[in-house]
């Protein structure tokens, strides 16, 4: 291809819209767009739509001979179920401070990790725990109860 007469250009006299700049800017623009879009896509990745956690709602068979004031702990669960004259109730045994499992003692519960103490009704008596141990929703009767760890009920609710 030859240059047409009258169209002589040097690099000091650029085209009105330098082609290279246009291509460069277009590349830059698409790169930023692609980067932003894929970043948002990737940011969604770490949080699965459904998480692989065990079911929080389950049935328990409460032994008939459970003495009053003694906790029944279903195998594999972090829940303490009690029966007394007024009915059945369940407390979560996951410490509200940082998630250790509390142990029942004469006064209520104690946490092995940072020394939080809880009363029998779950109220904080000592240490760093920010809130009381939650009472869990219990339904059912006649020895078979359903515990729902996700729904909390007011302290003192018994069925």
């Amino acid at each position: 291809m030859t240059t047409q007469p009258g169209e002589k250009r040097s690099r000091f006299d650029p085209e009105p819209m330098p082609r290279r700049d246009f291509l460069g800017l277009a590349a830059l623009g698409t790169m930023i767009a692609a980067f932003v879009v894929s970043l948002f896509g990737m940011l969604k990745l770490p949080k699965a739509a459904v998480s692989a956690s065990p079911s929080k709602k389950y049935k328990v068979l409460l032994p008939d001979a459970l003495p009053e004031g003694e906790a029944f702990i279903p195998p594999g669960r972090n829940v303490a179920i009690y029966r007394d004259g007024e009915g059945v109730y369940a407390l979560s045994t996951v410490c509200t401070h940082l998630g250790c499992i509390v142990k029942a003692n004469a006064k209520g519960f104690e946490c092995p990790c940072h020394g939080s103490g809880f009363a029998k009704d779950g109220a904080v008596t000592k240490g760093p725990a920010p809130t009381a141990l939650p009472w869990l929703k219990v339904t059912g009767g006649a020895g078979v109860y359903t515990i729902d760890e996700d729904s909390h009920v007011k302290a003192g609710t018994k069925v």
Partner: protein
Amino acid sequence: MDEAKRSALNEFWINLKTAPGQIYRAMFRGGAPVSDRTRSSFVFGNVFLHLHSVRTHLWSLKWSTTMGLGIITTAAFLITLVTGILLMFYYKPYPDVAYQSIKDIHFIVPTGRFMRNIHRWAANVMVVAVILHMARAFYTASYRKPREFNWFIGWGLLVTTLALSFTGYLLPWDQLAYWAITIGANIAQSPREITDAMGITEYFDIGGLQREILLGSEIVGEESLIRFYLLHVMILPLVLSMLMAVHFWRIRKDGGLAKPKNVDELVAADPKQHYPVFTEQPQKTYQLAAVVKGKTPAVGSGPENTVPSMPHLFYAELGVLMFTVLICFFLAFVSDAPLKELANPLVPENPAKAPWYFLGLQEIVSFSAFMGGIGIPMLCWIGLGLIPFLDKETEGTGEWFGGPGGAKLVGWSALYGFATSIAVEAFAIRFGWLREWFPDIPQLVITFVNPGTVITVLYAAFSIWVLRRFNSTRAGALALFTCFLAGFIVLTVIGTHFRGPNWDFFWSPSHWPGH
């Protein structure tokens, strides 16, 4: 045609025969590194070595300048890297088998136990060295212009190192691991302490999100193990390597290690140490003329008081590397890495303790999850990063404690730091805290007024007093940094040695009640 063919073939044979020699020469473009000139050009032309400058100042070679702490950290990292890769051959990152595979490594794989011990000890050496290295850089004011950015990078390296250690902690899937991660993940969730108190957790649950992203699930399980594994063996090492490369390269670009103003008087003792620089025809390049200006190391001054990095610096570095290897070997030989029972999500360890370098944190976390786990650490972390931008004095750069009077100030600050943290801790241990006195006190009060925050406030007050007393930001920084270092030591020792079951205070682990 025939003749041309033959001569090309000939040439090929000759080329083939001389290839080894040519490869050798191509490797050492400036010739074999036998003279100072060729050694220098070797350093200059080698991608790994040229992170060093070609010549090293005698000041930088004095052991009291750095105590080799940066190199110890690097060496420890290299050791963990090698042993870590070896461990990866046998380790299986899945809950049911992870614990068994560690047992295999420990009891079946030849040298497996030793490798695991070295891995663990080198990681510990790395944490200690990185903290000391930071203290060294701080006390010699090496963070000052033009090294601010490198302080920043080092700050990132510290965090990455701690993250690497912590993520490695979950992998054995024993009780220690399981409960340390449970606590760690719940610390990530602790902003809920604030959002709960304000009643907005339903709409804005940053804490819950952090925890879920970390664990990949609501519980510590297989998802969490894979995540921690990937972070530990892949993401964090890559981040660390990248930051390290920048860190080293910056040292070079910022003119080597920080030196005191009168450094030439200090090192120029022995005339034999002087290397006659311009006896050989200098080879110059002018390509860098556009970027070179006054502050760049070798502009405006001859390379007096410097020696070629090869071999002087490299031998020193190799020496430190071998010293580190020796330490790790020795520790690995006398002490086994622990492995407790298999993780049991129903019964926590009592006490459930984090790795030792987090026990100071755990101590203040035992007052408030949010302030101890996030609030105060964040404050320290941000403050640490801002140091070079808050202290812009120039006096005493490159000198320990900033010259005369500094050591005394640091001594007093350390005393104050130890005394206040011990006093506050002793008070809290003896008399309890707000919750015991006023059972109905709102949680927000405890979150913001607890022994951890009290210590922090006392430190800040002292540093402001020092700053005004000496009318110097550097003095204030020295006081504050020293106090926090002292506090870190006190809290770590209390958390490690004096806390037992239920996080109660015991004078010695031998007094712990049996259970």
